[in-house]
């Protein structure tokens, strides 16, 4: 006989406390009752006064004994006393079911996950009914699918509902988790059963040894597989409309394999896409193959990459990446001398410039409006750059006009002045502006700012002189200033985009030196933020599910299409002493008698009997019966 819930010491402590309280209450309840009566004359005649006024004694010992016995029975029921030995009690088992991406591979006419589920169910059926079982689904993360369940049907349902994920198996983490949850509960630990493939992610050599109670039920997976591993796309530095495409494939099998990479581009519907390239690759056993492509397009679309012929694991044989359109900024120039600005604007392919006479001015232009020495009757609603505006009508008030002044300095803290160093030139004539709070002075002479940027909506930049008509036209600062101003006005146009395709899991990314954590935004395709870390210019984030992730780091934009499954490269070797297969649990486990329900019933019945025999119930009933009887007798006597 043993106690399941309490130790012997705990049970005696609880019983002692309850008994003490019970006896105290009993003595208080059954002690001398204080009453106010009409007269004492009949009482004194009926009984001699008690000798010991303060003495308390148990007047109804059987009532107290019955109470104590009943409470002892209830405490034993709470402690779950059992007949048998603790060794024959139920145990807690953990089934670690491999739900990594690799489990979607097919072996014959069945997927590996089907075999693993079958093995897990067979193990579950072999477990004694008294034992509790927890199911843990293991891929890159160990996720408990059930608690420790005595109801094996719930566990079987959870096994049936398990599906392959997208990440590789992190077996060490899963086993560590299983061992941890087994130790949390006070019950005896049973087995930790790993059911799945031996293909895992790269293992940490510092991890603890496998648990001693590990049982292994490996799924045979001698499957030849090769698949895409990584895809990278970026715009060519020479031609922004040209994409440079890099494709990496890996052969997970044991034999070399000839594959063909096929690239298609088009709309979302794969059937309407047009082939844009193909290349044959010979993938050595366990090795990689790489191919590069170039494709020129200015429009958005879907780039599909396929690897043929397909194998038993088709999930990594194809991927799709969404290519963004080349961003364009529409620039409308109002100038009587458009040739002064034409070289600048034509040098940037992302700009589409339109030149108009001031007389043709329209205030509803979109994009960017450049006003060359011209005050429009109505200010443009779009962002605008004002070059040498007349003093009357300037969006930023002109404080004064100065002649023949040396250019003083650029404000290096302003993005519009980034990289500008030249100041060895004189301005023959320039307007000096009176800035308002919030205005940024980009360039200044001694008398004050001559290039001012005003943030807000719309953005406004005002130059107090015409650079192409001043000595600045001989300086490199002139095109740089203009490029900075364009980038400041429309930063999204000048983002450098890269598109990558890969597998879910941890993604690492090198960012530029001047990028800080504040400049980085990592979001999913629905806009929700993704946690990330930045350590020594390496950005790390984790994607647990297939999807797109957008990383904005400074002026770089990275579009990740994480749709390829993550496959482990490491073949895990089970410990040689770990048992394999379905276990045969001893039948003695079933021969355990639970007596606590009967003890609880007996205890409750004892308390009920005590209440009926000695409690207030009996007193009230007795008093009522006696009064009724005596009243009738008295009435009869009077008659």
């Amino acid at each position: 006989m043993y106690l399941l819930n309490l130790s012997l010491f705990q049970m005696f402590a609880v019983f002692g406390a309850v008994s003490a309280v019970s006896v105290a209450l009993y003595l208080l309840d059954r002690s001398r009752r204080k009453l106010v009566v009409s007269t004492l004359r009949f009482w004194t005649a009926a009984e001699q006064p008690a000798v010991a006024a303060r003495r308390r004694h148990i007047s109804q010992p059987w009532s107290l004994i019955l109470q104590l016995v009943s409470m002892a029975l209830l405490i034993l029921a709470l402690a779950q006393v059992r007949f048998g030995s603790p060794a024959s009690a139920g145990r807690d088992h953990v089934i670690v079911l491999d739900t990594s991406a690799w489990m979607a591979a097919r072996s014959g006419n069945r997927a590996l996950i089907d075999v693993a589920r079958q093995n897990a169910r067979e193990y579950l059926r072999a477990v004694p009914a008294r034992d509790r079982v927890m199911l843990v689904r293991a891929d890159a993360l160990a996720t408990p699918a059930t608690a420790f369940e005595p109801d094996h049907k719930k566990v079987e349902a959870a096994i049936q509902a398990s599906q392959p994920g997208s990440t590789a198996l992190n077996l060490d983490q899963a086993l560590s988790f299983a061992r941890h949850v087994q130790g949390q509960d006070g019950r005896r630990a049973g087995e930790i059963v790993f059911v799945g493939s031996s293909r895992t992610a790269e293992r940490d050599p510092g991890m603890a040894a496998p648990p001693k109670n590990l049982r292994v039920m490996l799924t045979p997976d001698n499957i030849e597989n090769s698949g895409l591993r990584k895809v990278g796309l970026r715009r060519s530095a020479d031609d922004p409309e040209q994409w440079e495409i890099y494709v990496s494939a890996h052969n997970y099998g044991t034999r070399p394999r000839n594959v063909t990479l096929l690239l298609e581009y088009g709309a979302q519907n794969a059937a309407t896409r047009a082939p844009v390239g193909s290349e044959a690759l010979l993938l050595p056993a366990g090795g990689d193959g790489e191919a590069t492509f170039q494709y020129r397009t200015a429009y958005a679309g879907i780039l599909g990459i396929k690897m043929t012929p397909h194998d038993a694991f088709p999930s990594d044989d194809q991927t799709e990446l969404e290519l963004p359109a080349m961003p364009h900024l529409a620039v409308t120039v109002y100038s009587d001398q458009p040739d002064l600005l034409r070289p600048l604007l034509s040098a940037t392919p992302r700009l589409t410039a339109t030149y108009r006479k001031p007389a043709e001015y329209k205030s509803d232009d979109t994009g960017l409006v450049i006003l060359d020495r011209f005050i429009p009757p109505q200010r443009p609603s779009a962002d605008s750059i004002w070059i040498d505006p007349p003093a009357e009508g300037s969006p930023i008030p002109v404080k004064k006009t100065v002649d023949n002044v040396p250019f003083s300095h650029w404000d290096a803290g302003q993005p519009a002045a980034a990289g500008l160093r030249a100041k060895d030139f004189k301005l023959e004539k320039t307007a000096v502006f009176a800035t308002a709070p919030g205005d940024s002075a980009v360039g200044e002479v001694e008398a004050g700012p001559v290039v001012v940027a005003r943030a807000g909506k719309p953005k406004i930049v005002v130059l107090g002189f015409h650079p192409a008509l001043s000595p600045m036209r001989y300086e490199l600062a002139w095109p740089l200033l203009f490029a900075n101003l364009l980038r400041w006005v429309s930063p999204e146009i000048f983002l450098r985009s890269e598109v990558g395709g890969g597998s879910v899991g941890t993604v690492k990314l090198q960012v530029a030196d001047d990028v800080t954590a504040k400049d980085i935004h990592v979001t999913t395709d629905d806009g929700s933020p993704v946690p990330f870390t930045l350590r020594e210019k390496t950005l790390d984030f984790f994607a647990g599910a297939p999807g797109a992730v957008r990383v904005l780091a400074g002026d770089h934009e990275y579009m990740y299409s994480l749709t390829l499954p993550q496959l482990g490269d490491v073949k895990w070797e089970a410990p040689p002493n770990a048992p394999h297969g379905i276990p045969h649990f001893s039948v003695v486990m079933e021969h355990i008698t639970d007596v606590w329900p009967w003890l609880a019933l007996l205890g409750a019945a004892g308390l009920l009997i005590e209440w009926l025999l000695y409690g207030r119930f009996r007193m009230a009933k007795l008093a009522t019966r006696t009064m009724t009887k005596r009243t009738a007798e008295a009435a009869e006597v009077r008659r």
Partner: protein
Amino acid sequence: MATTPLLDREFLEKLERLTIHWQKSFAGLVGGHNKSRLPGSGQEFLDHRNFHHGDDLRAINWHAYLRLEKLFLKMFQVEPRVPVRMLVDLSTSMTAHGGGKFEYARKLAASLCYVGLLRLDSIEVHGFSNRLGHRISSSGGRHRFPGVMDRLSLLGPEGATDYLAVIREFIGSYQQRGLVVIISDFLDDRGCERALQYLADFGHELMLVQLWAEEDRNPPWTGELELRDAETGVDLKLDFDDEARRRYTFQFDEYAAAIQTMAHRSGGRYAGVSTAQPLENVIFGELVRMRGVA
């Protein structure tokens, strides 16, 4: 604050067929409803007696004189108006065990007042404990009853019972004999028999209504008890069991029987009433049986 009336209208309607009765013949003016053996100026012939000087000549039976040549005087029966006086026990013993006896006594007194006022009796109610309390006097019909009930409602318990002092004060206050209804638990440590006998010897007719709570007659408790007298505050510790309960009830019944014997011996009446009995049952049962009301 509105208080609940002692008696409701439905109960009062049931009382309208009752009359307070007494057995003794009291002298008094005509106008009552109980015949008296004492002759008076009534209409109904009672007896003859010899004529004496000073008798009313109108009452001489002249037919008898012509036949016997002797003067006989006719005597007539009278129904005198007799005052009904009620003494209601207000001692703190009436409040023991929840105050049921006190409430019961007020209701019973109010009921008898209503019955008396219905028959145009003169009603005088006194509360008492160790002395006679203020008088509540009323006569002249049922329309006087609300005032009586209001004043009865204002009575409150106080003090310990002293029957001897109260009866002495009562006799000193009222010379005219009449019916005295005493509603009490008759629990006086000095005894009430002598005082009641004194009252009966003075010529009053006693109607004793002894009230008790069931706990007074048959205490339901057992075990170690610490008792306190509601009137004197004296404590008593004792062990109480079924045998002691039997002795207690015996003592109580002995005491009640002694009061009953005293009442009957002096020509009065006695009713022992448990507060567990409905008031209506007591009035139409106990009081009717003892000819207190009819």
